[in-house]
């Protein structure tokens, strides 16, 4: 439209340039388009074309703006000539017009109304080009006014009514000027389809529809009817009165029909809209119900990060009433550092335009929650992202359970693993690395069978086969290679999930236990071997003792008896020397009998099972001393016995102890004039130590360690009789009671024998065997040697 207007201006200008009357004024009796007008029309048309082509470009806007301002200036100057009745010389500037040009105020000067139109259209276009946002309505107003004026002028030409063309006495607007203005105005309206009047025309709303339907008719019907009436009257078909009545009736009729049709159309479209709206509302309600029922949190943010939608779960999370969150941002709900994180996540979606799946933790009133969030763009029909949608699913419990299971897995001191049925470890807990020394990667890189001891592979594969068929494996043992080349014995319990092709297994390192078991087995074997040997030795000793009892003593008795018989029956045939020899034979035989008796006692002590009882040692000592006094009634020995010495022990054995110790004291004081023997106790470190002290022959401390050995004597038989077994017997009995025995003394200064007894316990026979078996074996053999020699 701008183009055609510009063309009209250009043609008119050409008419002036080449003096073509048609181009100047269409008809001779029509007023001409002045040269200035032609230039103005050209510029306005160009301006509209420029804006239409490139309204968004800065250069186009500026040039259009300048052109329209120039046009406005031309209009303003011409207007000023009329107002101030002056001639600025601009009218004849380009071309000179005939001085008596029709319907012209001054030759070459555009009509007053034309100058006004230039002014306001120029201003209006400038405003459009410069995009004045404040006064959007003004250009519409200016353009509408100009369009109306142009329409008026055009009607004047149509009805051949001068008064219409010549709106005032200051000249008339040319026909093509009016047409050009109309085109320019329409073109200018079209520049802004979304604003002002045009917007209401082109909107899809019912109003726009009505407008589009009725407006063309409202313009054309009166024109047509008016023209018909005018033509009819001119032809004399009817008079003015009839003409008016006819035209009014026809106009009313046509417009009413049009309006009715339009209304019907609008109603139909409204029904459709209602239907669409209803279904949209229902849809919306359904979706809302779904979202509200969901246990997931659903929400939408606008570009500024404000909530535009929240479902009920989201509202509940923030303990908010329905809709109260709308308009709030995350910064209203969380401290800034936390909100920053969520904001950053949201920005990723805004920037990428793609969905983001992300785990988010939130500190809300219900505690720390972990969410799996899907955030996605919400787009309009043009694909522009207009909002950000999000759905967050509370996976806190899942995470907690997961982390608990994970913790259990990590911390377990059992070896835990998941393996697949293809024979590879899939997951191992850290205990594996700790036990075998191989890293997780090393263990998962090869089939696990390669870590199994070659001898155990076959049975291991058999167990895996069982697992593959879904059978559980309990308490299976095999050996696994360690990084240092050694093997660890593992005890397995495994189950499989055949449908997943996985084996779940726990193992315990029982290497040490196995070793201990092996050690114990070996020990037991050793022990039983020893025990058998011991039993055999004991049997031998028993047999030996029995034999000694009978067989060794019988010949002695014969020696003694027949020596005596010789002495009695052949006394007169023997001289004194012979008799002395026989007495010596008897004495030796008796001594040997004594030795045998003592030896048998010593061996018997070993075999007797101690039978602990409460024993009054003082009483026992008294009885022993009484015995001694009975045997040697001629001796005067001062004996002191401490009262109330009570112990737990075997009464028979303890009596043997005191018989030996007190008997020795009795014996070794025999050469003292004032013999003294004392039995008492003292307390050392809480344990009672008993002692037997005498003032007899004593002994050299250098030989103290020999005192308690069997057949060890510090005195000759001539000095003091004895076999050297008494103290060995004492030592054995004391040891069997868990005590100790030792002696102090000096030659001719007496001796003191000390002994202790474990207060309540008596060492059992087994302990004794273990502790002294070797020694006893030896002493037993020594005893045999001694007995034989």
């Amino acid at each position, binding site marked *: 439209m701008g183009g055609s207007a510009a063309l009209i201006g250009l043609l008119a200008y050409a008419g002036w340039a080449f003096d073509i009357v048609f181009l100047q004024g269409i008809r001779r009796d029509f007023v001409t388009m002045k040269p200035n007008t032609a230039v103005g029309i050209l510029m306005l048309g160009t301006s509209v074309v420029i804006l239409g082509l490139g309204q968004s470009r800065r250069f186009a806007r500026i040039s259009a703006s300048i052109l329209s301002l120039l046009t406005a200036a031309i209009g303003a100057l011409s207007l000023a000539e009329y107002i101030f009745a002056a001639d600025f010389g601009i009218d004849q500037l380009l071309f000179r017009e005939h001085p008596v040009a029709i319907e012209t105020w001054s030759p070459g000067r555009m009509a007053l109304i034309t100058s006004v139109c230039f002014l306001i259209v120029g201003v209006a276009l400038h405003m459009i080009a410069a995009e004045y946002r404040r006064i959007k309505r003004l250009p519409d107003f200016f353009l509408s006014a100009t369009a109306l004026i142009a329409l008026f002028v055009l009607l004047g030409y149509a009805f051949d009514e001068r008064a219409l063309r010549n709106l005032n006495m200051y000249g008339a607007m040319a026909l093509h000027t009016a047409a050009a203005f109309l085109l320019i105005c329409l073109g200018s309206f079209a520049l802004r389809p979304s604003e002002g009047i045009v917007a209401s025309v082109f909107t899809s709303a019912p109003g726009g529809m009505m407008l589009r339907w009725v407006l063309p008719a409202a313009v054309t019907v009166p024109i047509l009817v008016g023209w018909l009436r005018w033509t009819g009257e001119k032809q004399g078909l009817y008079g003015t009165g009839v003409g008016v009545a006819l035209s009014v009736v026809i106009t009313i009729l046509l417009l009413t029909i049009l309006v009715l049709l339009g209304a019907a159309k609008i109603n139909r479209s409204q029904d459709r809209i209602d239907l669409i709206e209803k279904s949209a509302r229902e849809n919306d309600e359904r979706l809302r119900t779904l979202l509200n029922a969901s246990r997931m949190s659903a929400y939408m943010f606008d570009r500024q990060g404000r909530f535009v939608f929240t479902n009920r779960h989201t509202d509940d999370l923030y303990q908010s009433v329905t809709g109260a969150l709308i308009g709030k941002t995350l910064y209203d709900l969380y401290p800034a550092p936390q909100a920053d994180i969520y904001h950053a996540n949201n920005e990723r979606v805004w920037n990428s335009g793609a969905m983001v799946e992300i785990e988010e933790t939130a500190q809300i009133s219900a505690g720390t929650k972990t969410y799996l969030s899907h955030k996605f763009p919400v787009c309009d029909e043009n694909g522009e992202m207009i909002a950000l949608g999000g759905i967050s699913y509370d996976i806190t419990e899942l995470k907690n359970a997961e982390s608990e299971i994970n913790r259990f897995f990590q911390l377990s001191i059992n070896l835990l693993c998941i393996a697949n049925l293809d024979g590879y470890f899939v997951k191992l807990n850290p205990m594996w690395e700790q036990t075998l020394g191989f890293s997780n990667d090393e263990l998962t890189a090869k089939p696990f069978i390669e870590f199994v001891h070659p001898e155990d592979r076959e049975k291991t594969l058999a167990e895996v086969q069982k697992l593959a068929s879904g059978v559980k494996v309990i308490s299976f043992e095999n050996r696994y290679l360690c990084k240092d080349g050694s093997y660890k014995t593992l005890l397995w319990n495994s189950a499989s999930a055949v449908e997943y092709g996985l084996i779940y297994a726990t193992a315990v390192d029982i290497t040490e236990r196995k070793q201990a078991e092996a050690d114990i087995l070996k020990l037991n074997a050793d022990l039983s071997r020893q025990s058998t040997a011991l039993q055999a030795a004991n049997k031998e000793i028993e047999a030996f*003792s*029995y034999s000694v*009892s*009978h*067989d060794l*003593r*019988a010949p*002695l*008795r*014969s020696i*003694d*008896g*027949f*020596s*005596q*018989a010789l002495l009695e029956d052949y006394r007169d045939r023997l001289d004194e020397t012979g008799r002395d020899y026989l007495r010596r034979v*008897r004495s030796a*035989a*008796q001594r040997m*009998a004594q030795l045998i*008796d003592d030896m*048998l006692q010593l061996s*018997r002590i070993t075999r007797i099972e101690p039978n602990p009882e409460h024993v009054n040692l003082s009483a026992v000592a008294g009885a022993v001393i009484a015995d001694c006094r009975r045997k040697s009634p001629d001796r005067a020995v001062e004996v002191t016995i401490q009262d109330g010495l009570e112990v737990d022990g075997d009464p028979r054995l303890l009596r043997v102890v005191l018989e030996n110790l007190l008997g020795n004291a009795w014996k070794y004081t025999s050469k003292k004039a004032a013999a003294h023997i004392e039995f008492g106790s003292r307390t050392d470190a809480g344990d009672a130590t008993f002692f037997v002290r005498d003032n007899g022959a004593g002994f050299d401390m250098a030989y103290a360690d020999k005192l308690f050995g069997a057949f060890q004597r510090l005195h000759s038989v001539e000095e003091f009789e004895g076999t050297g077994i008494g103290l060995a017997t004492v030592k054995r009995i004391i040891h069997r009671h868990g005590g100790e025995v030792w002696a102090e003394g000096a030659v001719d200064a007496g001796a003191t024998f000390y002994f202790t007894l474990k207060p309540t316990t008596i060492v059992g026979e087994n302990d004794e065997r273990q502790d002294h078996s070797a020694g006893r074996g030896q002493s037993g053999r020594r005893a045999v040697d001694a007995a034989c020699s």
Partner: protein
Amino acid sequence: MQLTLRALKQNNITNEIVVAKDGVEALEYLFCTGTYAGRNPYALPQVVLMDLKLPRVDGLELLRHIRADRRTKFLPVVILTSSKEEQDLIGSYSLGANSYIHKPVDFAQFCEAVRHLGLYWLLLNEVPQIETVLS
């Protein structure tokens, strides 16, 4: 054995003494079998002195036979042996020995023991009559 006889003689014990050289002979004598087949089975000794270590049938076995027979059930049996072993003492008494005497090596002591033995078992001790026992 000779020494025992000597000791008995020295102690003026003049009762009839029958000596069996081993366990088998003792059994034959007491139960009138073998070499003693014609002996009067009711003529029992006043006391039996026996060692435990005897050839062929040993002392304890002999004692068991004596105590097992109705006739000799109450026959006084004195064990006179070298052994002082507890197991011998217990074995003897469990099988019904009336006395257990350990023979000392010293002949003088032995003589003393035999004197007491004779005094007690031959003069003081009383046993039921065999007819009474059997009826």
